[in-house]
């Protein structure tokens, strides 16, 4: 990651130790994950122990230390979605992309995540791609949804 960008993020947070979560969120917004060298650089600049940073980075599920795809597909597997057939949707997504849940495609286009309730139970089963919610998803719909994001990134 660009050192200048990291410096700008650090400056925005005034090099405060207490802002470490915010700093890492900003880094992840840009890179989609937390690169090791960036964390080492942050540790150096903040004079904060790397073990502390690693602790926080591994504690929160929102942070990822491995590269993620450009689009994150969140398949809700909460109670309501589970009853409405979320497992079939997850199967279909995995089959279409040839990866398992919590993995990323080789071209780093998609990552699959399972979540345990998005608070949108009335829309069950729900699939969220980036910030877009898709309600009442059936396995047959998955290909159409994914192809939209494929064609969008080609544009």
């Amino acid at each position, binding site marked *: 990651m660009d050192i200048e960008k990291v410096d700008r993020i650090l400056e925005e947070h005034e090099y405060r130790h207490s802002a470490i979560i915010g700093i890492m969120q900003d880094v992840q917004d840009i890179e989609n994950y937390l690169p090791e060298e960036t964390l080492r650089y942050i540790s150096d600049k903040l004079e904060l*122990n790397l073990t502390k940073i690693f602790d926080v980075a*591994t504690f929160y599920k929102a942070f990822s230390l491995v590269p993620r795809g450009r689009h994150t597909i969140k398949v809700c597997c909460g109670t309501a979605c589970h009853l409405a057939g979320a497992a079939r949707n997850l199967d279909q997504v995995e089959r279409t992309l040839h990866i398992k849940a919590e993995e990323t495609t080789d071209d780093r286009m998609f990552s699959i995540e399972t979540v345990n309730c998005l608070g949108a139970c009335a829309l069950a089963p729900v699939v969220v791609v980036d910030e877009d919610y898709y309600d009442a998803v059936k396995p047959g719909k998955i290909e159409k949804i994914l192809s939209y994001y494929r064609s969008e990134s080609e544009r």
Partner: protein
Amino acid sequence: MKVSVIIDGQMVQIEQGAPIIDAAKKAGIFIPTLCYHEALKPYGSCCLCIVEVIQDGQRRLVTSCNFPAAVGMEIFTNTARVRQSRRMIVELLLVRCPDVPLLQTMAKQMGTGLSRFKTREANECILCGLCVRFCEEVVGVGAIGLANRGVDREVATPFKMASDVCIGCGSCTYICPTGCIKMVSDRKTPNLRSLKMGNCSLVPCPNSYQCETCQIEQEFFKDIKRVIAEFRSKGQ
């Protein structure tokens, strides 16, 4: 400011805000702990040191290693409730680490043993955090830390790679109450001070302790001098 508290019927004077365990020590009352150490900041992770406290008419269980003493506090260290809670804690720790002698004897003393719960995976670490805190607070290195959460929580080096800051002092092996960090000399990789949890590979001196002529030592001193110089120039 000194405050007086009543602990098991004894009146004891201690500093306001000092942990209750200090009062117990003054009164000569033994409180079992696993994560407390005088040289370190209290952490309160093992919860074995719980005592019953009556404050402002409220009766509750608190961890004595980090609960601040206040005026008019009444403390009981050996009530039935305390004993039962401690028994439960030891029992649960024993489920996690069934092979640790210290926990076995503790369990025996408290009248419990390995019983109703299933052992998931035998482990020797109770996550007391002593090694992590000692490395950071006393040694001042911070080579190891805690990572992940919930059932996956563990002691680890950053990115789970051989640490490049570990000085191989062995403090973590010394302070570990269950003995799950061991010093092992690794003959395959001489001159490399690396740290692996559960298998801490640290090497004896390759230059037979001739510190005056040793390259490693000289570089270390150079580093130290540079750091001191930097620190002084910053201070002025």
